[in-house]
């Protein structure tokens, strides 16, 4: 930033005791200019235009109005896929969280004292996290065939990477005193880990896993779009057939399910902390 200070001279003040202090020129114009440039590039690249938005926005409400009233008689056929979605998220989240623990332990540099192992484990976590869940689901449908199993695999991968990352960052902040004391008395590393560090991380571990489960229910709803089972399959189908009132019914059931699960899991998380 030195060139900037040279361009805009800092303001000098002379205090009553003869000392001079300088106040650097404000950075606001530079930041605003940068933001403006990025904004203009984005607008050009995406073809964003406010006039189109205002003239055509009624279309949005037309589609929106089509969703109402939801077709209640369609509910029986929503039930099974909805349950499938919840099953997928629960199974995937549970095993994802379970497998996240060893990965997190390998990634934390205060428990695993090997730079190479840390780096490899973190690299695995990063790769899995950068893969968008929907893409993972798509690849899974190619390998495991269409259906809920592919969705479960995608959710498993996401939960494992998410919980793994949160957990290893948390493990690195725990109090190591008790662990070192136990090692000093001659206990082996796994034994000391389970008795001293595990109780410290358990509440965070459980609440992160629950949080992942919450998000997964919401996310599993769209996995069906690529054929990975659950409520997204019928959602995609009904949108394709333009049966918008059935779509409305699906969205209402999803809303109720998500609200119920979120409230439940928030209560559990509050209890844990």
């Amino acid at each position, binding site marked *: 930033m030195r060139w900037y200070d040279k361009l805009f001279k800092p303001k000098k003040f002379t205090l009553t005791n003869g000392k001079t202090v300088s106040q650097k020129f404000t950075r606001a114009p530079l930041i605003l200019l940068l933001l403006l440039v*990025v*904004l203009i*590039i*984005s*607008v050009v*690249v*995406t*073809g*964003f*235009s406010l006039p*189109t*938005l205002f003239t*055509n*926005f009624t*279309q*949005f409400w*037309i*589609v*929106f109005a089509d969703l109402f009233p939801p077709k209640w008689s369609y509910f029986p056929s929503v039930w099974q896929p909805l349950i*499938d979605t*919840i*099953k*997928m998220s*629960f*199974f995937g989240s*549970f095993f994802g969280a379970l497998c996240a623990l060893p990965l997190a332990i390998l990634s934390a540099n205060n428990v695993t004292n090997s730079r190479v192992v840390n780096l490899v484990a973190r690299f695995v976590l*990063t*790769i899995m996290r*950068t*893969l*968008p869940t*929907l*893409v993972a689901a*798509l*690849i899974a449908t*190619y*390998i*495991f*065939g*269409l*259906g*809920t*199993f592919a*969705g*479960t695999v995608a959710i498993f991968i996401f939960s494992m990477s998410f919980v793994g990352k949160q957990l290893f960052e948390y493990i690195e902040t725990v109090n190591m005193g008790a662990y070192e004391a136990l090692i000093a008395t001659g206990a082996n590393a796994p034994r000391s880990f389970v008795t001293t560090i595990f109780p410290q991380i358990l509440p965070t571990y459980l609440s992160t896993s629950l949080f992942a489960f919450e998000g997964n229910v*919401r996310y599993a*709803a*769209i996995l069906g*779009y*690529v054929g990975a*089972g659950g409520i*997204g399959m019928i*959602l995609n189908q009904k*949108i394709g057939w333009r049966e918008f009132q059935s*779509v409305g019914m699906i*969205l209402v059931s*999803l*809303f109720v399910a*998500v*609200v119920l699960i979120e409230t439940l899991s928030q209560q559990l998380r509050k209890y844990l902390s």
Partner: protein
Amino acid sequence: MNKKLEDVLLTQPKRAKYYITAAVLVLAMLIWSSSALNQMHVTSKGLSIGWNILEGIITPDTTLLFGGGDSGVAYLILQTISIAFLGTIVGAFIAVPLSFISATNIVPKPIVVITRFVIMAIRTVPSLVYGLMFIRVTGPGPFAGVMTLAVVSIGMISKLFIETIEDLDSGILESLDAAGSTLFQKIRYGVLPQLSSDFISILAYRFDMNLREATILGLVGAGGIGAPMIFAMSGYEWHKVGAILIGLFILIFVIEYLSDKLRQYLLHG
């Protein structure tokens, strides 16, 4: 001495019953949900496709990966970043007033209940559904993606904004009042400095998330890097898929690193 230790050990609360109930519950749910695995049918074809994907990532299509023009990975990445950036900005524009009228320290309780319900409802609709709705408004392309991300971001941004606004320290405002500040001065020196760093950090976090979302919007034709990837996949052109996936990895990795750095700078100076 030993007796004392034993006494302490015995006074620890008995939680066995509680643990067993929790374990049984989780186990029951696992068994119930294991039917999600029924639809697995791995065939030799599936395995060979899996192998092909791996091979495609290792030997990507270099002309696509390093190519310029409208179909090169570089341009697609630029487009994806633009969609995510503009989507975050537009979303923030809508979320700021919405969060001020949902903060309990600013408006009365009944209004808060209504606005929070609206925010919750906005959050429930999956992004792909919004994508399909906005394609009717703007036509297929990145513009639809921008609007979709804007609406999808409202939920999370306003939820976090509300928390920040409710944490406002009113003592500062009172002391500014006592010093005789005008309303504008109170906002400029009392409110903005308290909110700005948190707001920017929330937006940086959401931008990071929007980028991931933007990569999948291509599925419904809303622009970004997703659409060419889907086409390449359904055409079994795994080398192209590999090139796009590599671009995606690098993009998300770099942005995540930058947004982490920005947020740490904002929080700790």
